[in-house]
């Protein structure tokens, strides 16, 4: 189980809407997500489940929620998937907006239980449950797309540990769209980080380059007003891009874990999307996530 978790007061100055990220102590709060996916309970106001799981022994499905401390209910999960494999059909949105991540095709569902054992990631703390995107065909479609209008911004927080340097990390994308498909920050199939930087009237840009090892990483990316004011952080440290360019982009996020034929090969535990600039609260949000997962 989780060790005692240090509490930390967070910056709550940003304008709030649906989501409040809650530490396991129920003390720290934050606000304002368009969609929020996690294997922990993010909001005291959220009363739904974390995931829906299909077990491979008989292909039946069951919702899995949280225990009394806000952790994924691994007791229920291992009971349901005793001796078999479990796959995520639905990653429920905890923001209150109902933008669930859904996969209706069995072969494309990310895995969370292997032979009765919950998959986990371990950083500097205790192991925490994770789901695995296989890099071949796994992804989740958003039940409602997240539009990005002219001049919109985003702030995205995501956890990953790629299965190898050559795989693609977790990302949110325009899904089946090809050229022009938008993407949030992504640890691409090398050691570089990429991210779109703006979506203004069909002309936008992206930044890439640098060096990023295939470790357990908390990646946060902020699309601000222009290419020159977008940033990404890895484990709360500013990432240095080597190149900025431009390219036409379309304007909606619709998929987690894939873009056309490019699939994430990574474990993940959490992705939070704000369609506003939350960079002023970068450290506070990263600290909240890291306090629970113990990444760095």
């Amino acid at each position, binding site marked *: 189980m989780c060790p005692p978790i240090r509490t930390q007061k967070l910056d709550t100055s940003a304008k709030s809407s649906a989501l409040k990220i809650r530490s396991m102590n129920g003390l720290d709060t934050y606000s304002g997500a368009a969609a929020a996916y996690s294997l922990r309970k993010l909001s005291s106001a959220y009363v739904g489940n974390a995931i829906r799981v299909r077990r491979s022994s*008989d292909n039946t499905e069951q919702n899995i929620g949280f225990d009394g401390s806000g952790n994924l209910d691994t007791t229920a999960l291992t009971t349901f998937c005793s001796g078999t494999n479990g796959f995520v059909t639905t990653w429920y949105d905890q923001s209150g907006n109902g933008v669930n991540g859904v996969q209706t095709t069995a*072969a494309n569902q990310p895995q969370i239980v292997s032979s009765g054992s919950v998959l986990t990631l371990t950083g500097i703390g205790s192991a925490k449950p994770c789901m695995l995107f296989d890099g071949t065909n796994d992804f989740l479609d958003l039940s409602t797309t997240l539009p990005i209008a002219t001049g919109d911004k985003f702030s995205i927080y995501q956890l990953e540990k790629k299965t190898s340097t050559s795989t693609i990390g977790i990302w949110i994308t325009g899904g089946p769209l*090809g050229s022009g498909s938008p993407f949030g920050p992504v640890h691409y199939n090398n050691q570089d980080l*990429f991210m779109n930087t703006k979506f203004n009237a069909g002309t936008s840009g992206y930044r890439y380059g640098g060096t990023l090892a295939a470790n357990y990483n908390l990646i946060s990316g902020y699309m601000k007003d222009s290419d020159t004011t977008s940033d990404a952080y890895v484990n709360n440290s500013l990432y240095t891009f080597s190149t900025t*360019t431009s390219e036409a982009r379309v304007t909606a996020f619709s998929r987690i874990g894939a873009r056309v034929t490019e699939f994430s090969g990574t474990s993940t535990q959490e992705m939070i999307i704000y369609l506003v600039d939350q960079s002023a609260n970068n450290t506070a949000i990263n600290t909240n996530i890291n306090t629970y997962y113990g990444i760095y």
Partner: protein
Amino acid sequence: MASINGYQYPTEQEAINARESVDSYYGIPVAPDDVTQNWVDYQFASLNDPQFWYIVFDESLTPILGTPTEFEVVTPPFLPTE
């Protein structure tokens, strides 16, 4: 261009039939309100000439669809690239 190991169909209906045969074999969906509605899905090679539909190979498909083949699928030119 991507090299795909799988099953190729000249019409969408043939791909649908193949998908349904796999679903039937594995008993999917188990319940009408399940999220999982198919065992495997097919894709459309829209940029190939001629166009075709295909299912990417998975070991679970061999008993129903047989031995897969290798074929090329044209993918859209999109970034990021280096």
